[in-house]
C-alpha cells in the first residue's frame, strides 16, 4: 500500500517537470510527515551522511578528468592514431571515429563527453571527405555510448554505490562487452561503407603509425593509470579517479598545451557544476531508497516476484523493458539510482550475478542515451553537428536497433560480461 503511495506521488511530482532531485526529496518529506511517525529531522541528517562515503567521490574526480580531457588535445591525437590503423578500410574515417571513441572511452567515464570530444573534430571532417552527414552523426553519436561501458564509467560507480558491489569488478566486467560492441559497430560501419562506396584513406605507413602512437602516448598511458592502477591494487577507484584528474590537467596544460593556465578555473567550475548536480540527485536518491527500505518495499517486491515463480529469463526481459521505458523519461544516473536498489534484490534472489546485472543496466542506459526524448548523446550530437533534432533522430534510428540486439545478446549470454572478471577474481588454486 505505502509503496503505491510513494511511487504514485513521485511520478506525479516528476511529471510537473520539477528537477528529479527535488521530486525525490519532496516525496520523502511528504511521506515521512503524513504517513509515519518518524521524525522529519532525519532528512537533513541523511542529506549529509548519504554522501559521506569515499567511493562516491570517484564521480566528481572522473568528471573533472573528463572535462580536462575534452579540452586537451587528447581526442585529436587519438583520432590520428586510430586513422593510421584503420583509415585504409572502406569508410576508414568513420571506423577510425568508432575506434577513437573506444580509446577515449577508456580514459573518460561519460558518454556525452566522448561524443563532444570525438564528434566535434570528426563529424565535420567526415563531411568534408564526402560522407553523408547523417551517417557520421549516427556512427559517432552511437559509438559515444562506449564511454560508460568501457571503464572508467560514472554510471558503473553509481550502480556500485547504490548496490554495494565492487567498482573494480564492474570495471573489469565492462572491458570485454565494451570491446565487443566497438568491434560490432566498426564491422557495421565497414559493411555499410563498402556497400555505399564511402571513401577510403591512404594506407598509413609504419612510420606514421609509430609517430601517431607516440604522439598519442600521453593519453593512452592514462588507460594504464586507471585500469592498471585499480586492478594492480595500486589505487582505490576513487584515488585512481583523482590521479587521472591530476594527470589530465598536467597533459592538457603542460604537455599538449591546449589549455592555458588561466582557463583552469573555468574548467574546475564546469566540472563542479556537473558533479554537484549529480551528487545532489545522489543524496536525494539515497534518501528515497532509505525510505523504500524502511518501508520494506524492495523486499516485498522481491517476494512478490519470487511467488510468481518467474524465471530469471523472464525477469531480465521485464527489467530490460522497464529500463528502456524509463530511458524515455530520465537520464542514466537517475534511473540507476532509483531502480537499481529495487531490482537488485530480486535479481540476486533469482541467481543473477550482481556484476552481470550491473553491465545489463549499463547497456540499457546506453540505449536510453541515443533515443529521444531525453537521450543526451542525441542532443550533444545534434549540437555538435548543428543538425536538427528530428534529423538526428532519424540518423540514430538504425543504430538503436543494433544496440537493442546487442543488449539481448549480453543479457542472455552472461559469459560475455562475466568471463574476464571470473578469470581474474576466481583463479583456480
Amino acid at each position, binding site marked *: 500500500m505505502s509503496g503505491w503511495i510513494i511511487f504514485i506521488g513521485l511520478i506525479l*511530482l*516528476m*511529471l*510537473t*517537470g*520539477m*528537477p*528529479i*532531485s*527535488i521530486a525525490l526529496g*519532496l516525496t520523502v518529506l511528504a511521506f515521512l510527515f503524513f504517513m509515519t511517525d518518524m521524525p*522529519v*529531522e532525519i*532528512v*537533513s541528517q541523511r542529506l*549529509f551522511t548519504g554522501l*559521506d562515503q*569515499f567511493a562516491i*567521490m570517484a564521480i*566528481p*574526480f572522473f568528471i*573533472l578528468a573528463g572535462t580536462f580531457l575534452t579540452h586537451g588535445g587528447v581526442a585529436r591525437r587519438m*583520432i590520428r592514431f586510430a586513422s593510421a590503423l584503420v583509415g585504409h578500410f572502406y569508410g576508414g*574515417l568513420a571506423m577510425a571515429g568508432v575506434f577513437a571513441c573506444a580509446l577515449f572511452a577508456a580514459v573518460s567515464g561519460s558518454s*556525452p563527453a566522448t561524443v*563532444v*570530444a570525438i564528434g*566535434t*573534430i570528426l*563529424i565535420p*571532417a567526415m563531411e*568534408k*571527405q564526402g560522407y553523408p552527414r547523417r551517417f557520421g552523426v549516427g556512427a559517432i553519436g552511437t559509438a559515444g555510448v562506449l564511454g560508460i561501458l568501457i571503464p572508467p564509467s560514472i554510471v558503473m560507480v553509481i550502480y556500485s554505490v547504490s548496490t554495494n558491489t565492487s567498482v573494480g569488478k564492474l570495471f573489469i566486467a565492462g572491458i570485454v562487452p565494451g570491446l565487443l560492441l566497438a568491434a560490432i559497430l566498426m564491422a557495421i560501419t565497414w559493411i555499410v561503407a563498402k556497400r555505399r562506396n564511402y571513401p577510403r584513406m591512404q594506407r598509413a605507413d609504419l612510420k606514421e603509425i609509430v609517430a601517431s602512437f607516440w604522439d598519442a602516448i600521453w593519453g593512452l598511458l592514462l588507460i594504464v593509470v586507471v585500469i592498471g592502477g585499480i586492478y594492480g591494487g*595500486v589505487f582505490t577507484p576513487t*584515488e585512481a579517479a*583523482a*590521479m587521472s584528474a*591530476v594527470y589530465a590537467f598536467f597533459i592538457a596544460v603542460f604537455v599538449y598545451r591546449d589549455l592555458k593556465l588561466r582557463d583552469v*578555473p573555468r574548467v*574546475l*567550475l564546469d*566540472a*563542479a*557544476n556537473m*558533479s*554537484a*548536480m549529480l*551528487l*545532489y540527485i545522489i*543524496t536525494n536518491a539515497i534518501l528515497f531508497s532509505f525510505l523504500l527500505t524502511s518501508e520494506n518495499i524492495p523486499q516485498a517486491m522481491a517476494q512478490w516476484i519470487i511467488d510468481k515463480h518467474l524465471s530469471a529469463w523472464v525477469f531480465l526481459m521485464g527489467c530490460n523493458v522497464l529500463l528502456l521505458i524509463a530511458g*524515455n*523519461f*530520465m*537520464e542514466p544516473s537517475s534511473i540507476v539510482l532509483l531502480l537499481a536498489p529495487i531490482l537488485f534484490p530480486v535479481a540476486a534472489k533469482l541467481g543473477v550475478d550482481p556484476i552481470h546485472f550491473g553491465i545489463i543496466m549499463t547497456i540499457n542506459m546506453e540505449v536510453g542515451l541515443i533515443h529521444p*526524448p*531525453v537521450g543526451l548523446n542525441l*542532443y*550533444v550530437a545534434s*549540437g*555538435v553537428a548543428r543538425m536538427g533534432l528530428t534529423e538526428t533522430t532519424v540518423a540514430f534510428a538504425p543504430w538503436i536497433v543494433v544496440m537493442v540486439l546487442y543488449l539481448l545478446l549480453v543479457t542472455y549470454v552472461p559469459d560475455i560480461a562475466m568471463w574476464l572478471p571470473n578469470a581474474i577474481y576466481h583463479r583456480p588454486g
Partner: protein
Amino acid sequence: MLNRILDHLEEWLIATFMALATLIIFASVAYRYTGDVPWIWQYTQYLNLTWAQELCIYLFIWMAKFGAAYGVRTGIHVGVDVLINRLPEKQRRAGVLLGLGAGAFFTAVVAVLGAKFVWLMYGTGQVSPDLELPMWIVYLAVPLGSALMCYRFLQVAWRFWHGEPLPSHSHARVEGLQAEGRG
C-alpha cells in the same frame, strides 16, 4: 551589486573546493608511494596524511551543497519536461513556476531542518574521527547550501515571472573547443 558578490563568491568557493580535494588525494597517494625514496622521505616523514580521505569527503560535500545552488542558476538540474513542454504557453508557465516553487519550498524546509540539526550537534560537541573538526561546522554545509539554493530558486522564478528565459545548460557546447576540419 550584492548579487554579483554572491555569484563570484559561490563560483570561487566551489572551484576551490574541487581543486583542493583533488590536490589532497593526489598528495596522499604520492606520499604513500614515495615512502621509500630517501631524499623525499627526508622531508615528508613528519607529515601525517591519514585525514586526507575525510577532508576530501567534506570538501566535496561542501562543493556539492553550494554547487547545487550554482546549478540552479546555470539550469543544470533537469526534470522530466517531456509532458510540460507540450502544454499551451500559459499552462506551461504556470507549471514551470510551480516546479521552481516546489524547489524553493523543499530547500527552505531542508535549510530549517538542517539548522536545527546543526544546533543539536553544537550541543553535543561531537568531533570528526580523523581531523577532530567540530561536527556542527561540517554539517553547516546543509543549511547554508540549502538556504542559498532556495534563494536561487526564488531568483530564477522571479526572473522567469518577469519574462526572462529559463537558464539552460547545453552539454554540447564546450568553450574553447570548436569544430575543425581535417584532411
